[in-house]
Protein backbone atom coordinates (compact mmCIF):
# COMPACT_ATOMS: atom_id res chain seq x y z
CA UNK A 1 0.00 0.00 0.00
CA UNK A 2 1.24 3.47 -0.65
CA UNK A 3 2.42 5.69 2.18
CA UNK A 4 1.00 8.85 0.65
CA UNK A 5 -1.78 8.97 -1.86
CA UNK A 6 -3.17 12.07 -3.48
CA UNK A 7 -6.51 11.40 -5.11
CA UNK A 8 -8.14 13.69 -7.63
CA UNK A 9 -7.13 16.85 -5.85
CA UNK A 10 -8.14 20.32 -7.00
CA UNK A 11 -6.55 23.36 -5.41
CA UNK A 12 -6.63 27.08 -5.84
CA UNK A 13 -6.31 30.46 -4.26
CA UNK A 14 -9.51 32.43 -4.06
CA UNK A 15 -10.93 32.58 -7.54
CA UNK A 16 -7.70 31.24 -9.08
CA UNK A 17 -7.73 27.51 -9.74
CA UNK A 18 -4.29 25.92 -9.70
CA UNK A 19 -4.26 22.13 -9.54
CA UNK A 20 -6.88 20.11 -11.32
CA UNK A 21 -7.59 16.47 -10.68
CA UNK A 22 -4.12 15.58 -9.49
CA UNK A 23 -3.45 12.05 -8.29
CA UNK A 24 -0.17 10.55 -7.24
CA UNK A 25 1.24 7.98 -4.88
CA UNK A 26 4.45 7.67 -2.89
CA UNK A 27 5.38 4.35 -1.35
CA UNK A 28 7.33 3.58 1.73
CA UNK A 29 11.01 4.29 1.22
CA UNK A 30 10.54 5.67 -2.23
CA UNK A 31 11.93 8.81 -3.82
CA UNK A 32 9.44 10.42 -6.13
CA UNK A 33 9.92 13.60 -8.08
CA UNK A 34 7.50 16.08 -9.59
CA UNK A 35 8.79 18.04 -12.51
CA UNK A 36 7.17 20.81 -14.42
CA UNK A 37 7.68 24.28 -15.72
CA UNK A 38 7.46 27.45 -13.78
CA UNK A 39 3.94 28.07 -12.56
CA UNK A 40 2.76 24.52 -13.14
CA UNK A 41 1.40 24.27 -9.63
CA UNK A 42 4.02 22.07 -8.01
CA UNK A 43 4.47 24.23 -4.95
CA UNK A 44 0.76 24.54 -4.52
CA UNK A 45 0.39 20.80 -4.66
CA UNK A 46 3.06 20.29 -1.99
CA UNK A 47 1.40 22.94 0.14
CA UNK A 48 -1.88 21.14 -0.09
CA UNK A 49 -0.25 17.87 0.89
CA UNK A 50 1.44 19.55 3.82
CA UNK A 51 -1.80 21.16 4.88
CA UNK A 52 -1.07 24.81 4.15
CA UNK A 53 -3.66 24.95 1.41
CA UNK A 54 -6.89 23.09 1.69
CA UNK A 55 -7.79 21.05 -1.39
CA UNK A 56 -11.09 22.04 -2.88
CA UNK A 57 -11.83 18.57 -3.98
CA UNK A 58 -10.26 15.18 -3.67
CA UNK A 59 -8.43 13.52 -0.83
CA UNK A 60 -4.99 13.15 0.63
CA UNK A 61 -4.36 9.80 2.26
CA UNK A 62 -1.46 9.10 4.53
CA UNK A 63 -0.99 5.58 5.81
CA UNK A 64 -4.41 4.90 4.32
CA UNK A 65 -5.90 7.45 6.60
CA UNK A 66 -7.76 10.43 5.19
CA UNK A 67 -5.76 13.47 6.25
CA UNK A 68 -7.21 15.95 3.78
CA UNK A 69 -8.70 18.18 6.44
CA UNK A 70 -5.80 18.14 8.89
CA UNK A 71 -3.82 21.28 9.54
CA UNK A 72 -0.15 21.49 8.78
CA UNK A 73 0.91 21.06 12.38
CA UNK A 74 -1.17 17.93 12.76
CA UNK A 75 0.31 16.49 9.60
CA UNK A 76 3.79 17.32 10.78
CA UNK A 77 3.09 15.36 13.91
CA UNK A 78 2.14 12.39 11.76
CA UNK A 79 5.44 12.66 9.93
CA UNK A 80 4.54 14.65 6.82
CA UNK A 81 7.19 17.35 6.77
CA UNK A 82 7.86 19.97 4.15
CA UNK A 83 10.93 22.01 3.36
CA UNK A 84 9.32 25.07 1.83
CA UNK A 85 10.37 26.79 -1.35
CA UNK A 86 12.40 29.88 -0.63
CA UNK A 87 13.89 28.70 2.66
CA UNK A 88 11.66 30.43 5.19
CA UNK A 89 14.13 30.17 8.01
CA UNK A 90 13.17 31.90 11.25
CA UNK A 91 15.32 34.93 10.62
CA UNK A 92 15.47 36.35 14.13
CA UNK A 93 16.35 33.05 15.75
CA UNK A 94 19.68 31.34 15.96
CA UNK A 95 20.70 28.50 13.69
CA UNK A 96 20.53 26.11 16.60
CA UNK A 97 17.07 27.26 17.56
CA UNK A 98 15.95 26.74 13.99
CA UNK A 99 17.22 23.18 14.13
CA UNK A 100 15.54 22.57 17.48
CA UNK A 101 12.29 23.88 16.06
CA UNK A 102 12.62 21.36 13.27
CA UNK A 103 12.51 18.67 15.91
CA UNK A 104 9.57 20.30 17.62
CA UNK A 105 7.11 17.46 17.43
CA UNK A 106 9.51 14.66 18.12
CA UNK A 107 8.94 12.46 21.09
CA UNK A 108 12.48 11.09 21.38
CA UNK A 109 14.08 14.12 22.92
CA UNK A 110 17.33 12.38 23.72
CA UNK A 111 18.17 11.68 20.12
CA UNK A 112 17.84 15.30 19.11
CA UNK A 113 21.36 16.37 20.03
CA UNK A 114 22.74 13.48 18.03
CA UNK A 115 20.72 14.57 15.04
CA UNK A 116 21.96 18.13 15.36
CA UNK A 117 25.45 16.72 15.22
CA UNK A 118 24.46 14.76 12.13
CA UNK A 119 23.15 17.90 10.44
CA UNK A 120 26.28 19.79 11.31
CA UNK A 121 28.14 16.96 9.72
CA UNK A 122 26.11 17.18 6.53
CA UNK A 123 26.47 20.93 6.40
CA UNK A 124 29.59 21.93 8.26
CA UNK A 125 28.80 25.61 7.97
CA UNK A 126 25.88 25.13 10.34
CA UNK A 127 28.29 24.17 13.10
CA UNK A 128 30.28 27.32 12.55
CA UNK A 129 27.19 29.47 12.49
CA UNK A 130 25.44 27.69 15.36
CA UNK A 131 24.78 30.84 17.37
CA UNK A 132 24.28 33.24 14.47
CA UNK A 133 20.82 34.52 13.66
CA UNK A 134 19.49 32.60 10.71
CA UNK A 135 18.69 35.84 8.93
CA UNK A 136 22.37 36.71 8.66
CA UNK A 137 23.26 33.56 6.73
CA UNK A 138 23.96 33.73 3.04
CA UNK A 139 21.28 32.49 0.70
CA UNK A 140 22.79 29.09 0.21
CA UNK A 141 23.51 28.72 3.90
CA UNK A 142 19.89 29.42 4.65
CA UNK A 143 18.88 26.78 2.16
CA UNK A 144 21.08 24.26 3.96
CA UNK A 145 19.53 25.25 7.23
CA UNK A 146 16.04 24.82 5.82
CA UNK A 147 16.86 21.33 4.59
CA UNK A 148 18.52 20.39 7.86
CA UNK A 149 15.60 21.76 9.82
CA UNK A 150 13.25 19.58 7.82
CA UNK A 151 15.42 16.53 8.42
CA UNK A 152 15.48 17.23 12.14
CA UNK A 153 11.83 16.24 12.27
CA UNK A 154 12.79 12.68 11.31
CA UNK A 155 9.87 12.68 8.91
CA UNK A 156 8.18 9.63 7.48
CA UNK A 157 7.82 11.49 4.26
CA UNK A 158 9.83 14.57 3.38
CA UNK A 159 8.40 17.04 0.90
CA UNK A 160 11.29 18.94 -0.64
CA UNK A 161 10.45 22.03 -2.67
CA UNK A 162 13.42 22.97 -4.80
CA UNK A 163 16.08 22.13 -2.24
CA UNK A 164 18.97 22.85 -4.60
CA UNK A 165 18.00 26.47 -4.96
CA UNK A 166 21.04 28.65 -4.42
CA UNK A 167 23.38 25.82 -3.51
CA UNK A 168 26.82 25.66 -5.00
CA UNK A 169 27.53 22.79 -7.43
CA UNK A 170 29.60 21.08 -4.77
CA UNK A 171 26.72 21.12 -2.36
CA UNK A 172 24.20 20.08 -4.97
CA UNK A 173 26.14 16.92 -5.48
CA UNK A 174 26.26 16.41 -1.74
CA UNK A 175 22.54 17.00 -1.55
CA UNK A 176 22.09 14.03 -3.79
CA UNK A 177 23.76 11.89 -1.15
CA UNK A 178 21.70 13.39 1.59
CA UNK A 179 18.43 12.66 -0.18
CA UNK A 180 19.47 9.09 -0.59
CA UNK A 181 20.42 9.05 3.07
CA UNK A 182 16.92 10.11 3.97
CA UNK A 183 15.73 6.91 2.54
CA UNK A 184 18.56 4.71 3.76
CA UNK A 185 19.20 6.15 7.24
CA UNK A 186 15.90 7.76 8.11
CA UNK A 187 13.84 5.13 6.37
CA UNK A 188 11.61 7.84 4.99
CA UNK A 189 10.07 8.54 1.65
CA UNK A 190 10.84 11.69 -0.32
CA UNK A 191 8.64 13.73 -2.61
CA UNK A 192 10.97 16.03 -4.49
CA UNK A 193 10.10 19.05 -6.56
CA UNK A 194 13.16 20.21 -8.49
CA UNK A 195 14.07 22.45 -11.33
CA UNK A 196 17.51 20.95 -11.41
CA UNK A 197 16.49 18.02 -13.55
CA UNK A 198 19.90 16.46 -13.30
CA UNK A 199 19.54 16.11 -9.56
CA UNK A 200 15.93 14.98 -9.67
CA UNK A 201 16.44 12.37 -12.35
CA UNK A 202 19.49 10.93 -10.69
CA UNK A 203 17.94 10.31 -7.27
CA UNK A 204 14.29 9.58 -7.97
CA UNK A 205 12.75 6.29 -8.95
CA UNK A 206 9.33 7.51 -9.89
CA UNK A 207 8.38 10.77 -11.50
CA UNK A 208 5.40 12.88 -12.36
CA UNK A 209 5.32 15.59 -14.91
CA UNK A 210 3.07 18.50 -14.32
CA UNK A 211 1.88 21.28 -16.54
CA UNK A 212 -0.80 23.92 -16.05
CA UNK A 213 -1.90 22.32 -12.83
CA UNK A 214 -2.38 18.81 -14.19
CA UNK A 215 -0.30 15.66 -14.22
CA UNK A 216 0.60 15.17 -17.85
CA UNK A 217 2.87 12.16 -17.55
CA UNK A 218 4.03 9.74 -14.93
CA UNK A 219 6.01 6.57 -14.49
CA UNK A 220 9.45 5.37 -13.63
CA UNK A 221 12.28 7.76 -14.27
CA UNK A 222 13.42 5.73 -17.25
CA UNK A 223 9.96 5.83 -18.76
CA UNK A 224 9.72 9.53 -18.15
CA UNK A 225 13.01 10.30 -19.79
CA UNK A 226 11.70 8.63 -22.92
CA UNK A 227 8.33 10.35 -22.88
CA UNK A 228 7.83 12.91 -25.61
CA UNK A 229 5.97 15.29 -23.34
CA UNK A 230 8.99 15.43 -21.13
CA UNK A 231 11.23 16.10 -24.05
CA UNK A 232 9.10 18.94 -25.17
CA UNK A 233 7.99 20.50 -21.97
CA UNK A 234 10.88 20.11 -19.71
CA UNK A 235 14.16 19.06 -21.12
CA UNK A 236 13.52 20.47 -24.53
CA UNK A 237 16.10 22.94 -25.64
CA UNK A 238 13.33 24.82 -27.31
CA UNK A 239 12.47 28.03 -25.58
CA UNK A 240 8.90 28.58 -24.60
CA UNK A 241 7.22 30.86 -27.02
CA UNK A 242 5.13 32.93 -24.74
CA UNK A 243 7.64 33.16 -21.96
CA UNK A 244 10.39 35.15 -23.46
CA UNK A 245 12.08 35.80 -26.71
CA UNK A 246 13.96 33.07 -28.43
CA UNK A 247 17.65 33.26 -28.12
CA UNK A 248 19.36 35.72 -30.39
CA UNK A 249 20.62 33.75 -33.32
CA UNK A 250 24.31 33.05 -33.05
Amino acid at each position, binding site marked *: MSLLAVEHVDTGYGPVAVNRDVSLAVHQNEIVTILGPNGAGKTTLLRSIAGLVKPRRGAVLFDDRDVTALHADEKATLGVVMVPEGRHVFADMSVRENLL*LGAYCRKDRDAIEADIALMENYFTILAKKRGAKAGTLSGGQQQMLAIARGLMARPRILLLDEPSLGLSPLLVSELQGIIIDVREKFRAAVLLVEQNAGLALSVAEQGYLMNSGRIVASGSIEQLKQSPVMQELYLGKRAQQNHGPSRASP
Partner: protein
Amino acid sequence: MDIFVQQLVNSLSVASVTILIGIGITLIFGLAGIVNFAHGEFLMVGGMATWFMVGAGMNFFVALVFAGLLVGALGFAAERCLFRFTLNRPMNGFIMSIGLSVILQHAVIRVFNEFQKSITDPVGMVWTIGGVDIIAMRAIVVAITAVVVAITYFGISRSRYGMALRASVSDRDTAELMGIPVRRYVTGVFIYGSLLAGIGGALMISLFPITPFTGSVIIIRGFAVSLIGGLGNVGGAVVGGLVLGLVDGLSAGYGYPEWTDAYSLVVMILILVLRPQGLLGGTLGPKAS
Protein backbone atom coordinates in the same frame (compact mmCIF):
# COMPACT_ATOMS: atom_id res chain seq x y z
CA MET B 1 14.67 61.06 52.63
CA ASP B 2 11.79 59.07 54.10
CA ILE B 3 9.58 60.80 51.57
CA PHE B 4 11.92 59.62 48.85
CA VAL B 5 11.74 56.03 50.04
CA GLN B 6 7.99 56.31 50.20
CA GLN B 7 7.97 57.55 46.63
CA LEU B 8 10.03 54.56 45.60
CA VAL B 9 7.62 52.15 47.23
CA ASN B 10 4.68 53.88 45.62
CA SER B 11 6.27 53.74 42.22
CA LEU B 12 7.13 50.11 42.66
CA SER B 13 3.59 49.05 43.42
CA VAL B 14 2.16 50.97 40.50
CA ALA B 15 4.94 49.67 38.33
CA SER B 16 3.79 46.20 39.37
CA VAL B 17 0.35 46.64 37.88
CA THR B 18 1.90 48.18 34.78
CA ILE B 19 4.25 45.23 34.56
CA LEU B 20 1.38 42.76 34.76
CA ILE B 21 -0.48 44.43 31.96
CA GLY B 22 2.77 44.95 30.07
CA ILE B 23 3.55 41.24 30.25
CA GLY B 24 0.09 40.37 29.06
CA ILE B 25 0.49 42.70 26.13
CA THR B 26 4.02 41.71 25.31
CA LEU B 27 2.95 38.08 25.14
CA ILE B 28 -0.17 38.66 23.11
CA PHE B 29 1.32 41.33 20.91
CA GLY B 30 4.88 40.10 20.65
CA LEU B 31 4.25 36.39 20.49
CA ALA B 32 0.78 35.96 19.12
CA GLY B 33 0.99 39.10 17.00
CA ILE B 34 -2.37 40.40 18.14
CA VAL B 35 -2.64 44.07 18.93
CA ASN B 36 -5.34 44.12 21.55
CA PHE B 37 -6.38 47.60 22.51
CA ALA B 38 -9.11 46.10 24.67
CA HIS B 39 -6.51 44.65 27.00
CA GLY B 40 -6.97 47.66 29.26
CA GLU B 41 -10.68 46.91 29.38
CA PHE B 42 -9.85 43.34 30.33
CA LEU B 43 -8.01 44.77 33.29
CA MET B 44 -10.95 47.03 34.10
CA VAL B 45 -13.34 44.10 33.89
CA GLY B 46 -11.08 42.16 36.25
CA GLY B 47 -11.18 45.05 38.68
CA MET B 48 -14.94 45.44 38.41
CA ALA B 49 -15.46 41.72 38.91
CA THR B 50 -13.31 41.87 42.01
CA TRP B 51 -15.29 44.81 43.27
CA PHE B 52 -18.50 42.92 42.71
CA MET B 53 -17.32 39.74 44.38
CA VAL B 54 -15.76 41.49 47.33
CA GLY B 55 -18.95 43.49 47.68
CA ALA B 56 -20.86 40.21 47.79
CA GLY B 57 -18.72 39.17 50.72
CA MET B 58 -15.99 37.18 49.07
CA ASN B 59 -12.44 37.28 50.38
CA PHE B 60 -10.27 39.51 48.22
CA PHE B 61 -7.67 36.91 47.43
CA VAL B 62 -10.29 34.40 46.36
CA ALA B 63 -11.91 37.09 44.25
CA LEU B 64 -8.54 37.79 42.68
CA VAL B 65 -8.30 34.22 41.46
CA PHE B 66 -11.83 34.30 40.11
CA ALA B 67 -11.23 37.64 38.42
CA GLY B 68 -8.19 36.15 36.71
CA LEU B 69 -10.18 33.14 35.53
CA LEU B 70 -13.11 35.22 34.38
CA VAL B 71 -10.97 37.52 32.31
CA GLY B 72 -9.03 34.54 31.00
CA ALA B 73 -12.33 33.16 29.75
CA LEU B 74 -13.15 36.53 28.24
CA GLY B 75 -9.83 36.43 26.44
CA PHE B 76 -10.61 32.97 25.14
CA ALA B 77 -13.92 34.12 23.76
CA ALA B 78 -12.40 37.20 22.18
CA GLU B 79 -9.69 35.21 20.49
CA ARG B 80 -12.04 32.57 19.19
CA CYS B 81 -14.72 34.89 17.95
CA LEU B 82 -12.73 37.91 16.83
CA PHE B 83 -8.98 38.01 16.71
CA ARG B 84 -8.62 34.64 15.08
CA PHE B 85 -9.94 36.22 11.93
CA THR B 86 -7.53 39.10 11.79
CA LEU B 87 -4.29 37.26 12.41
CA ASN B 88 -2.97 38.26 9.01
CA ARG B 89 -3.96 41.88 9.36
CA PRO B 90 -2.74 43.37 12.60
CA MET B 91 -4.20 46.78 11.80
CA ASN B 92 -7.64 45.25 11.47
CA GLY B 93 -7.17 43.44 14.74
CA PHE B 94 -6.23 46.74 16.28
CA ILE B 95 -9.37 48.45 15.04
CA MET B 96 -11.51 45.54 16.08
CA SER B 97 -10.05 45.67 19.55
CA ILE B 98 -11.07 49.31 19.77
CA GLY B 99 -14.60 48.21 19.01
CA LEU B 100 -14.34 45.55 21.68
CA SER B 101 -13.07 48.09 24.15
CA VAL B 102 -16.04 50.38 23.48
CA ILE B 103 -18.40 47.45 23.97
CA LEU B 104 -16.78 46.32 27.22
CA GLN B 105 -16.70 49.81 28.70
CA HIS B 106 -20.33 50.40 28.05
CA ALA B 107 -21.39 46.90 28.96
CA VAL B 108 -19.86 47.52 32.38
CA ILE B 109 -21.69 50.84 32.57
CA ARG B 110 -24.86 49.08 31.56
CA VAL B 111 -24.46 46.38 34.21
CA PHE B 112 -23.25 48.68 36.98
CA ASN B 113 -22.89 52.39 36.23
CA GLU B 114 -20.27 54.84 35.11
CA PHE B 115 -19.08 55.79 38.59
CA GLN B 116 -15.82 54.71 40.05
CA LYS B 117 -15.71 51.63 42.20
CA SER B 118 -13.45 50.88 45.10
CA ILE B 119 -13.05 48.25 47.74
CA THR B 120 -11.75 48.71 51.22
CA ASP B 121 -8.10 47.85 51.55
CA PRO B 122 -8.15 44.05 51.90
CA VAL B 123 -5.21 44.12 54.27
CA GLY B 124 -5.72 47.54 55.73
CA MET B 125 -2.34 47.81 57.36
CA VAL B 126 0.33 50.41 57.13
CA TRP B 127 3.79 49.36 58.09
CA THR B 128 6.01 52.04 59.47
CA ILE B 129 9.58 51.02 58.93
CA GLY B 130 12.22 53.51 59.92
CA GLY B 131 9.84 56.42 59.63
CA VAL B 132 8.61 55.27 56.23
CA ASP B 133 4.93 54.53 55.86
CA ILE B 134 4.45 51.53 53.65
CA ILE B 135 0.93 50.50 52.82
CA ALA B 136 0.95 46.75 53.31
CA MET B 137 -1.28 46.05 50.33
CA ARG B 138 1.21 47.80 48.10
CA ALA B 139 3.93 45.47 49.26
CA ILE B 140 1.66 42.50 48.64
CA VAL B 141 0.95 43.72 45.13
CA VAL B 142 4.67 43.85 44.47
CA ALA B 143 5.08 40.35 45.85
CA ILE B 144 2.26 38.85 43.81
CA THR B 145 3.64 40.47 40.69
CA ALA B 146 7.08 39.08 41.41
CA VAL B 147 5.66 35.58 41.64
CA VAL B 148 3.64 35.93 38.44
CA VAL B 149 6.65 37.32 36.62
CA ALA B 150 8.79 34.44 37.79
CA ILE B 151 6.28 31.84 36.67
CA THR B 152 5.81 33.50 33.32
CA TYR B 153 9.47 33.96 32.74
CA PHE B 154 10.12 30.34 33.47
CA GLY B 155 7.27 29.22 31.31
CA ILE B 156 8.37 31.26 28.35
CA SER B 157 12.12 31.17 28.42
CA ARG B 158 12.84 27.79 29.84
CA SER B 159 10.31 25.78 27.94
CA ARG B 160 10.11 25.12 24.26
CA TYR B 161 6.87 27.05 24.13
CA GLY B 162 8.66 30.36 24.11
CA MET B 163 10.78 29.37 21.17
CA ALA B 164 7.79 27.96 19.34
CA LEU B 165 5.83 31.12 19.95
CA ARG B 166 8.57 33.33 18.63
CA ALA B 167 8.79 31.15 15.56
CA SER B 168 5.06 31.48 15.09
CA VAL B 169 5.20 35.25 14.94
CA SER B 170 8.07 35.37 12.56
CA ASP B 171 6.52 32.93 10.09
CA ARG B 172 3.21 31.38 10.93
CA ASP B 173 3.02 28.93 8.03
CA THR B 174 6.49 27.61 8.45
CA ALA B 175 5.97 27.25 12.17
CA GLU B 176 3.00 25.05 11.40
CA LEU B 177 5.14 23.01 9.08
CA MET B 178 7.38 22.32 12.08
CA GLY B 179 4.40 20.81 13.83
CA ILE B 180 3.80 23.78 16.09
CA PRO B 181 0.08 24.04 16.77
CA VAL B 182 0.15 27.76 16.15
CA ARG B 183 -3.52 28.42 16.58
CA ARG B 184 -3.70 26.58 19.85
CA TYR B 185 -0.67 28.42 21.15
CA VAL B 186 -2.04 31.74 20.08
CA THR B 187 -5.22 30.95 21.95
CA GLY B 188 -3.21 29.81 24.96
CA VAL B 189 -1.12 32.94 25.06
CA PHE B 190 -4.19 35.04 24.66
CA ILE B 191 -5.89 33.34 27.56
CA TYR B 192 -2.82 33.65 29.73
CA GLY B 193 -2.26 37.30 28.90
CA SER B 194 -5.90 38.04 29.63
CA LEU B 195 -5.67 36.18 32.90
CA LEU B 196 -2.79 38.42 33.89
CA ALA B 197 -4.91 41.43 33.02
CA GLY B 198 -7.64 40.09 35.28
CA ILE B 199 -5.21 39.70 38.15
CA GLY B 200 -3.80 43.14 37.38
CA GLY B 201 -7.29 44.60 37.60
CA ALA B 202 -7.91 42.94 40.93
CA LEU B 203 -4.63 44.23 42.30
CA MET B 204 -5.32 47.66 40.93
CA ILE B 205 -8.64 48.03 42.63
CA SER B 206 -7.00 47.01 45.86
CA LEU B 207 -4.78 50.08 45.52
CA PHE B 208 -7.14 52.71 44.21
CA PRO B 209 -10.60 53.02 42.73
CA ILE B 210 -11.24 52.29 39.10
CA THR B 211 -13.86 53.48 36.67
CA PRO B 212 -15.14 51.96 33.46
CA PHE B 213 -12.70 54.26 31.69
CA THR B 214 -9.59 53.19 33.58
CA GLY B 215 -8.69 50.65 30.93
CA SER B 216 -8.28 53.10 28.12
CA VAL B 217 -5.81 55.11 30.18
CA ILE B 218 -3.70 52.19 31.29
CA ILE B 219 -3.51 50.51 27.89
CA ILE B 220 -1.08 52.99 26.41
CA ARG B 221 1.36 52.41 29.21
CA GLY B 222 0.96 48.73 28.57
CA PHE B 223 1.85 49.07 24.92
CA ALA B 224 4.68 51.38 25.72
CA VAL B 225 6.04 48.99 28.31
CA SER B 226 5.96 46.06 25.95
CA LEU B 227 7.69 47.99 23.19
CA ILE B 228 10.21 49.61 25.49
CA GLY B 229 11.15 46.27 26.94
CA GLY B 230 11.28 44.48 23.62
CA LEU B 231 8.30 42.69 22.15
CA GLY B 232 7.74 39.23 23.48
CA ASN B 233 10.37 39.71 26.13
CA VAL B 234 9.01 39.11 29.61
CA GLY B 235 12.12 40.45 31.29
CA GLY B 236 11.84 43.47 29.05
CA ALA B 237 8.31 44.15 30.21
CA VAL B 238 9.55 44.09 33.78
CA VAL B 239 12.34 46.52 33.04
CA GLY B 240 10.03 48.69 30.93
CA GLY B 241 7.42 48.71 33.68
CA LEU B 242 9.99 49.65 36.29
CA VAL B 243 11.42 52.42 34.16
CA LEU B 244 8.01 53.91 33.47
CA GLY B 245 6.84 53.38 37.04
CA LEU B 246 9.88 55.12 38.43
CA VAL B 247 9.73 57.97 35.96
CA ASP B 248 6.07 58.40 36.79
CA GLY B 249 6.49 58.24 40.51
CA LEU B 250 9.56 60.38 40.70
CA SER B 251 8.35 62.99 38.26
CA ALA B 252 5.12 63.28 40.22
CA GLY B 253 7.13 63.57 43.37
CA TYR B 254 9.82 65.91 42.19
CA GLY B 255 8.98 67.36 38.78
CA TYR B 256 6.55 70.13 37.97
CA PRO B 257 3.27 68.48 38.91
CA GLU B 258 1.30 69.91 36.02
CA TRP B 259 3.77 68.28 33.66
CA THR B 260 3.61 64.93 35.45
CA ASP B 261 2.44 62.84 32.53
CA ALA B 262 4.80 64.52 30.11
CA TYR B 263 7.96 63.08 31.61
CA SER B 264 7.07 59.48 30.97
CA LEU B 265 5.82 60.30 27.48
CA VAL B 266 9.14 61.86 26.60
CA VAL B 267 11.02 58.91 28.05
CA MET B 268 8.85 56.54 26.03
CA ILE B 269 9.46 58.39 22.80
CA LEU B 270 13.18 58.56 23.41
CA ILE B 271 13.51 54.89 24.19
CA LEU B 272 11.41 53.86 21.22
CA VAL B 273 13.47 56.01 18.89
CA LEU B 274 16.86 55.18 20.29
CA ARG B 275 16.34 51.47 20.80
CA PRO B 276 13.62 50.27 18.46
CA GLN B 277 14.30 46.67 19.39
CA GLY B 278 13.56 47.50 23.01
CA LEU B 279 15.78 47.80 26.04
CA LEU B 280 16.36 44.07 26.31
CA GLY B 281 15.69 43.25 22.68
CA GLY B 282 12.83 41.19 21.42
CA THR B 283 11.07 40.12 18.33
CA LEU B 284 10.42 42.93 15.94
CA GLY B 285 6.79 42.00 16.03
CA PRO B 286 4.44 41.28 13.24
CA LYS B 287 4.38 43.57 10.28
CA ALA B 288 1.81 46.29 10.53
CA SER B 289 -0.24 46.68 7.42
